[in-house]
């Protein structure tokens, strides 16, 4: 019974992490209909920034996290303004080719600068080890991830649902032409959202170094996971991707624990079945945009 709870706990932490990593992609892919396979590269940027600051410059871990967010967001907005925006209207094939190219470049560039081996971020002592909670082993680091990501999720939901910016974004996504007719600066809204999504990915990358492992091949290894979250979760709200991430996280951890040799197999099979059954995602709306 306690192992079940431990698996559940680890799975939730993993799923929360995946959500923070992938929710930026849910916006670009699901809402703006842009196939961004380079999303993992932004996560990697944040992770490496955090690693350099903590390991080489001696920054405290919690001070480096916001900077990981900001750097990834800045890189994101710079690329969006210079390159990505030319491709919004192009075919999916062009978008795929372009973002695969960016991913390859980021992999080789990070390999060149940082070396190809896996990198670890020095954690403060307070986050190491685990404590017992009614016999269930709770990792401190994973608990912190759940808290941070849970707060972020609530904040995101509030921003989308309650603020003026949130309603602008929803309007711009639903019908860009009508929205710009109403005086909403659609490209600006998209650019800001894109940057914010990249920032979240960067933060997720910094947090995930401990759990997922950070090396130059990060964007390629986890690309499929991000895509699963978005396609399975659908794009009508952020609750869809959120539930999909939790499912994926718990499923992956449980799969690796109970049927260790079939781990990835289970995930891919579930994904294909869901895509066949509901091509717009489990929680997606019926109309394909």
């Amino acid at each position, binding site marked *: 019974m306690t192992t079940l709870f431990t698996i559940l706990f680890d799975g939730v932490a993993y799923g929360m992490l995946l959500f923070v990593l992938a929710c930026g992609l849910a916006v670009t892919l699901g809402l703006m209909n842009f196939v961004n396979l380079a999303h993992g590269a932004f996560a990697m940027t944040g992770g490496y920034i955090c690693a350099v600051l903590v390991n080489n410059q001696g920054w405290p871990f919690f001070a480096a996290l916001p900077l990981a967010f900001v750097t990834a967001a800045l890189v994101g907005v710079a690329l969006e303004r210079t390159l990505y925006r030319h491709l919004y209207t192009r075919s999916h*094939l062009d978008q795929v*080719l372009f973002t695969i*190219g*960016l991913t390859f470049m980021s992999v*080789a560039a990070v390999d060149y600068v940082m070396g190809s081996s896996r990198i670890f971020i020095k954690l403060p002592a307070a986050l190491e080890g685990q404590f017992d909670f009614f016999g269930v082993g709770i990792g401190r680091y994973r608990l912190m991830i759940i808290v941070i990501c849970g707060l972020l999720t609530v904040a995101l939901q509030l921003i989308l649902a309650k603020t003026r910016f949130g309603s602008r974004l929803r309007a711009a996504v639903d019908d860009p032409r009508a929205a710009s007719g109403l005086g909403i600066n659609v490209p600006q809204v998209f650019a800001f959202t894109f940057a914010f999504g990249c920032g979240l990915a960067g933060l997720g990358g910094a947090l995930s170094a401990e759990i997922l492992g950070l090396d130059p091949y990060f964007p390629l290894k986890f690309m499929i996971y991000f895509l699963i979250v978005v396609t399975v979760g659908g794009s009508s709200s952020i609750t869809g991707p959120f539930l999909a991430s939790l499912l994926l996280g718990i499923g992956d951890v449980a799969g690796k624990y109970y049927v260790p040799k079939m781990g990835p*197999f289970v995930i891919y099979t579930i*994904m294909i079945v869901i*895509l066949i059954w509901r091509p717009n995602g489990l929680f997606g709306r019926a109309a*394909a945009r």
Partner: protein
Amino acid sequence: MTAASDVSSHAIARARWRPAEIAFWILALSCAFLFPSRYLIMTDILRLALFTLSLDLILGYAGIVSLGHAAFFGVGAYSAGLLALHGIINEPVIALVAAGLVAMVLGFLTSFLVIRGVDLTRLMVTLGIALLLEALAERFSNITGGTDGLQGIEMQPILGLFAFDMFGKTGFFYSLIVLFLLFLLARRIVNSPFGLSLRAIKNNPLRASAIGVPVNRRLIAIYTIAAFYAGIAGALFTQTTALASLDVFAFERSADLMLVLVIGGTGYLYGGLIGAVVFKMLQELFQTITPQYWLFWIGLVLVVMVLVGRERIHRWVLWVPNLVIRQLFGRKAVVAVPESDAP
């Protein structure tokens, strides 16, 4: 003249062999005698060309975007490897066809998943199938050899006459003949009414079905054929290198394949062949400059190609040959710009 005969005369006119095409194949054959020390790399190019031809059939002609074409390549490679390793079919040509058929069956079965949904779902499903097969190959490592790959494959002589030599001469001619035969078949397919209906589907599926083209059945058919081609390419890989490892399923292989096709141009058969030559040369060049970081430059080529526009680049490249043809022969350019992609 009725509409039907008009279509067929048009198709026949398109299918006629042009001097440039004959020159292309004579050039390919003469490479064997011009660079006798480069058989291995040239065989590599031929395999890649066949693999790209396969992607061109579904992407360039039918408009199906696939990120997991390596699945069929891998199945072909492992089938050929296992057949040779366990001595089930010793004769390479029969084993080649058998491996292609195995991939073809897989292609037929998965085509039902692929034809559903829009571009994005197709991307995910094809990618998922390739990853699934990679996970399976890793799981059943007692059969596939796991990360070490299949070891100790001994290839028997082709048709019992031509043994594979260590310089790759036999392998090269074998691959060239296979490529040429399959190219002829592909040429026949795309110039047939069937091929024309595929183009109609690619341009507008709704309109194609309105004029009576059975869209789904045509897509299933071409996907199955393309899987056969990819399986043959994979089997050639195993037979000429005596090697099959997990990386035949790798995502990088599918992604590189896209790049090869895009360099050569989609929607005409020589695109894959020219793309394979250019890609391998680029790869060799980058690998000699920066052995470890050539991936960066490949990525840069992709990004630049998309940003500048694929059609524009092809026009620039073809400008000189077209000018020469116009000046020398005083007629319309024969080297055509490949058909543009429907947005």
